[in-house]
């Protein structure tokens, strides 16, 4: 009992913390060739720093529109950046011609649709919007 209880408590804590942080998840189509991306890789895909995966696939990131709570939560979680920091990041690239932000769609439903239409698309949405047509990454 003494040995098991701390383990159970630790496991319960981990699950709780995970549930609190995991409101927004990155997803790909269920049939997508993209199989195992790490959090760091997903972050780099959305920031334009990773444009080709090891197997040659060029992932297509799908953003949600600026101002969306889901978008703000996603970038804070995956890249540690606040909405202003994200805007500053893209401003630097746009005004020096070195990059452009991903295409943005209106909401979780639009993300699901975009991801279905393109097998190499990666999007993010609220965990509650996940359905059988998509797979969570990582």
């Amino acid at each position, binding site marked *: 009992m003494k040995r098991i209880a701390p383990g159970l408590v630790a496991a319960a804590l981990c699950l709780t913390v995970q549930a609190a942080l995991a409101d927004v998840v990155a997803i790909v189509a269920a049939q997508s060739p993209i199989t195992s991306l790490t959090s*760091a*890789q997903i972050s*780099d895909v959305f920031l*334009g*720093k*990773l*444009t*080709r995966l090891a197997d040659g696939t*060029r992932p*297509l*990131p799908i*953003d949600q*529109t*600026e*101002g969306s709570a889901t978008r703000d939560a996603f970038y*804070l979680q995956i*890249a*540690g*950046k*606040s*909405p*202003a*920091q994200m*805007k*500053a*990041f*893209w*401003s*630097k690239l*746009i*005004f*020096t*011609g*070195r*990059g*452009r*932000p*991903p*295409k*943005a*769609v209106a909401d979780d439903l639009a993300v699901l649709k975009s991801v279905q239409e393109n097998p190499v698309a990666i999007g993010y949405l609220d965990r509650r919007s996940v359905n059988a047509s998509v797979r969570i990454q990582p």
Partner: protein
Amino acid sequence: MSASTSAETMNDVDLTAPMFSFAAFGTLAAVHSSEEQADFVATAYKPDGAGFSNSWSGKVDSLIAGQVTGTFSPHVSAVVQVVAEQSHDGAFQPHVEWANFRYQFSPDLSLTFGRTALPTFTHNDSRKVGYSLPWVRPPVEVYDLAPITSNDGLGVIYQRRIGSATNTLQLTGGWSVSKFPGGRIGAGEAKARELLSIADTHEWGFAMLHVNFGRTRVSIAALEPLFAALRQFGPPGEALADKYEVNDALVSFMGLGAGYNPGEWFVQAEWGHLDSSSLLGAKTGWYVSGGIRFGTLTPYLNYADVRPTGRTFEAGLDLASLPANLQDPAAQLNGALNSALSGIPRQATYTLGARWDFMRNVAFKLQYDQIALGRDSVGTLLNVQPGLRRGGTVHLFSASLDFVL
């Protein structure tokens, strides 16, 4: 800067896009300097600033800029960026900062033809986009080092993945013409040719490392009368003119930058060096900066330093060996040489400020700078009046509003 127009997306295959997109940025700022015997300016291109000319000046940092990007095919695009700010002749005027065609061979490799801002120090090509910077302005000790900040010619950008890091290499070559107001190195045009710059940025997680090398040949025609006069003094005058003349003079510059930015805080440091055996001289500048983000407020603290690394004094023509009637003119020529050389800045600045992102796309910043002018130096100040005490302290107060559209 709408992220939803397809013309601005990463995926170049998406052709259902409008052909043209527009974006804008700007800064509205005011600076007060406690030093009334000289002007604080952030760049040598502007004729006046805060202090002597105006107690409070909006001209030091204020600007507005617009950019139009045209996408003509998955591979071909063009951009024009026009910036309006105080120009060398004092008027608030627009000028073309960027104007180029870009051919994107792949998402990793592109070629530009036309005008770009020179990618030297970490923020050099984005130094006017106040919204993208944590501070009111990039530290002048590093960012005012090189007299050339733009390039007309060719550029290549190659981005590749090395392990889990992203490496971006930028090669730029061409020429540039900048107009300077009257100042310590003379007014008029500075022409740079055979400009070549290599910059590499390595990003790994939250860490960034940046290195750049560049060289160019600079000519400032307005200085020619000084050297023509020196040449009239025989071999010693010829020797002085050959050494200091800014006529196709070789100028080299290099920089090293590093940063760590996990989002909740950041540290950043840069070191830059400019070298020329001409009147432009040699100097080294560096800064360290750190900040912490508390919600929408990001206070920061910087320390910056710049100092000459070459000659700041030239004995010049030997007056004693000249006939009496030539001693005064010779002394004046010596004085002109030394005025330029002693103008190579020596100063150190402590900066304390905060950025407040109080609404979307807008940032408000308050900044206090304490500039310690080096012994016998006027630092980076311009329009120096006789009453200026060299080696003194200057207190700057800046307030700015940066926005992007």
